[in-house]
């Protein structure tokens, strides 16, 4: 008999499931939105029956032989506390809605085991502190033995900031913030003011737009009074201050239908204030001679800020996991369940791979060989990187679906759209023909890990696209399609150990063009999750301007 630990992200938004095996190895992790092809999968059970069934099959779980223990990413139902939802920044109705979804996810966690014949009554659920789940997931994926681990998000158990010590892979909380002060909420409010919608996950759009704006000093000073940072703990300022800053900020607000650039200065100023707050928090974290930081929680998706930390805040090294937001908590819950069940203290080592999700179904792939309705299929086994590099050089835009899907919001070469970053017009072409995104938003570059210092200032590993760094000025004209307005790029670094195929591709493209940089954007259209099935990938090929898709070693062209 083997035991598997099923971790569930039970926040009610961004549900996900993860499976850790009896040896403490993470063997599967996937957000529900991928399986369902429904962005953020609001209110969906993280153990959604067909998704769980596929995940268990993928890891070789044998119902007749193996045991499944269920874990959730919250200890309690937030709505059971007699604490009013804060309306300091967002409407209380949003908070009540979130509480209702969280209550449902917590109550029903594990119920799918009944349907799958894996339990005869509601299974016992091991329930863990929300921020501890964030920390455990991040530290599991990191190679670090010792680090300060900071969790910053929208809402945790009692507050929205927690600091943990990781020492010899053992996690212990040093302190946490109590009360409603939240940088996640601050950024969500900023997103709405800029005319976007945090409920659609549009915080990215604010961060991208910030590069086009000027920081307005008066507004920045005002925004920096909304929250109080006290020894790293965060709380909202008094109600009168918050109200007066809201009024000042609302004078800069962009109605959703107004031109995008109208919000650029507000975005730049809000991003600057956000950085100021995180700097203040980090100043209270560095206590011992531990020069490494693990940064996680939803706020760790702010790659612009993340890229500024190493070497500046007392930390030489910063690690951000591939899924720092609530989807990643499925991993944390599963890892913590393994620790509790086995009595181990130390978080198991991992290889750090983000490629933890589903693979293309072999049966569907086999069927493609029998006919593709006018599409041309070529088996490029052993020469896939060369074949793709040649087509990129010719200006083609390709979708790639190879190996296991990435866990986390970024496409890291296994579910990616790839293109040549050298033509300045490539950004507009991809937007017009494939993605349909706002024209100002940047695309990401992929470079070899050992060449990152040749291309970027403040070079550091970025295997999950967690850091935005400044391009060295001499290169900016060489790859304009992946240089953002402020001269930065949110890069992915690849090496042979973790991403062998992408490494081959970057090298092949370099040999052909003399430029070791490939444009990488997620394999989806705007508003949809990243493709999950072979059918999703083919549908995108025929309904968009993609020139070809590579599914495993089968190159399918129009």
């Amino acid at each position, binding site marked *: 008999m083997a035991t598997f630990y099923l971790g569930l992200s039970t926040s009610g938004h961004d549900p996900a499931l993860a499976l850790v095996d009896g040896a403490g190895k993470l063997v599967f992790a996937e957000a529900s939105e991928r399986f369902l092809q429904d962005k953020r999968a609001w209110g969906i059970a993280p153990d959604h029956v067909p998704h769980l069934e596929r995940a268990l099959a993928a890891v070789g779980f044998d119902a007749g032989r193996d045991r499944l223990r269920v874990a959730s990413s919250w200890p309690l139902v937030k709505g*059971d506390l*007699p*604490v009013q939802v804060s309306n300091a920044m967002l409407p209380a109705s949003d908070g009540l809605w979130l509480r209702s979804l969280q209550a449902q996810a917590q109550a029903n966690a594990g119920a799918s085991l009944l349907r799958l014949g894996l339990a005869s009554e509601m299974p016992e659920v091991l329930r863990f502190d929300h921020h501890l789940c964030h920390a455990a997931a991040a530290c599991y994926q990191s190679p670090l033995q010792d680090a300060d681990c900071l969790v910053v998000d929208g809402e945790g158990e009692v507050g929205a900031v927690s600091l943990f010590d990781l020492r010899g892979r053992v996690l212990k909380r040093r302190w946490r913030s*109590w009360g409603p002060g939240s940088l996640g909420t601050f950024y969500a409010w900023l997103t709405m003011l800029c005319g976007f919608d945090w409920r659609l996950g549009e915080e990215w759009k604010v961060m991208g737009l910030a590069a086009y704006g000027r920081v307005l000093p008066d507004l920045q000073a005002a925004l920096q009074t909304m929250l109080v940072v006290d020894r790293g703990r965060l709380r909202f300022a008094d109600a009168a201050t918050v109200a007066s800053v809201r009024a000042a900020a609302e004078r800069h607000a962009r109605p959703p239908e107004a031109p995008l650039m109208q919000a650029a200065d507000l975005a730049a100023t809000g991003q600057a204030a956000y950085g100021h707050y995180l700097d203040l928090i980090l100043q209270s974290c560095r206590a011992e001679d531990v020069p490494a930081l693990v940064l996680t929680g939803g706020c760790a998706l702010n790659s612009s800020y993340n890229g500024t930390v190493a070497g500046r805040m007392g930390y030489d090294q910063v690690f951000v996991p591939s899924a720092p937001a609530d989807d990643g908590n499925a991993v944390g819950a599963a890892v913590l369940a393994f620790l509790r069940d086995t009595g181990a203290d130390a978080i198991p080592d991992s290889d750090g791979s983000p490629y933890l999700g589903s693979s293309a179904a072999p049966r569907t792939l086999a069927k493609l060989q029998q006919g593709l309705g006018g599409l041309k299929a070529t088996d490029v086994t052993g020469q896939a990187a060369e074949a793709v590099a040649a087509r990129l050089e010719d200006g083609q835009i390709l979708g790639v679906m190879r190996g296991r899907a990435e866990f986390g919001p970024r496409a890291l070469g296994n579910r990616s759209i790839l293109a040549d970053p050298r033509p300045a017009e490539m950004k507009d072409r991809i937007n017009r023909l494939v993605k349909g995104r706002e024209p100002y938003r940047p695309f990401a570059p992929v470079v070899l890990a050992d060449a990152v210092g040749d291309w970027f200032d403040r070079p550091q590993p970025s295997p999950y696209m967690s850091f935005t760094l400044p391009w060295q000025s001499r290169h900016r004209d060489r790859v304009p399609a992946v240089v953002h307005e402020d001269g930065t790029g949110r890069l992915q670094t690849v090496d042979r150990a973790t991403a062998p195929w992408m490494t081959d591709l970057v090298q092949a493209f370099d040999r052909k063009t003399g430029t070791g940089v490939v444009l990488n954007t997620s394999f989806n259209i705007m508003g949809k999750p990243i493709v999950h099935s072979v059918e999703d990938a083919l549908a995108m090929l025929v309904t968009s301007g993609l020139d070809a898709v590579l599914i495993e070693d089968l190159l399918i062209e129009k």
Partner: protein
Amino acid sequence: MTETETPAASAASAPDVLAFVRDQLAARLNLPVDQIEPGSDLIGLGLQSIDAVMMCGEVEDHFKVELDPSTIFEHETVGSFVDEVVRRLNG
């Protein structure tokens, strides 16, 4: 560990916790400290839930004790909450 195993620690820290909680409540409720007794009813004193939460954070930091988000709401009086903190300190 139970309370009975560590009577000395309980006895030593209970007045400290009580004094700290009384100061916290006095500051948050704008009341003289001597109006806050172990038998005082937390809701009767006018304690709002947000202040209760913030005070728990201060207690957690000051005494290096872990509280649950629901801890304070499970206790009606100042003294009952203080006893719970002391129990956790020794637990």
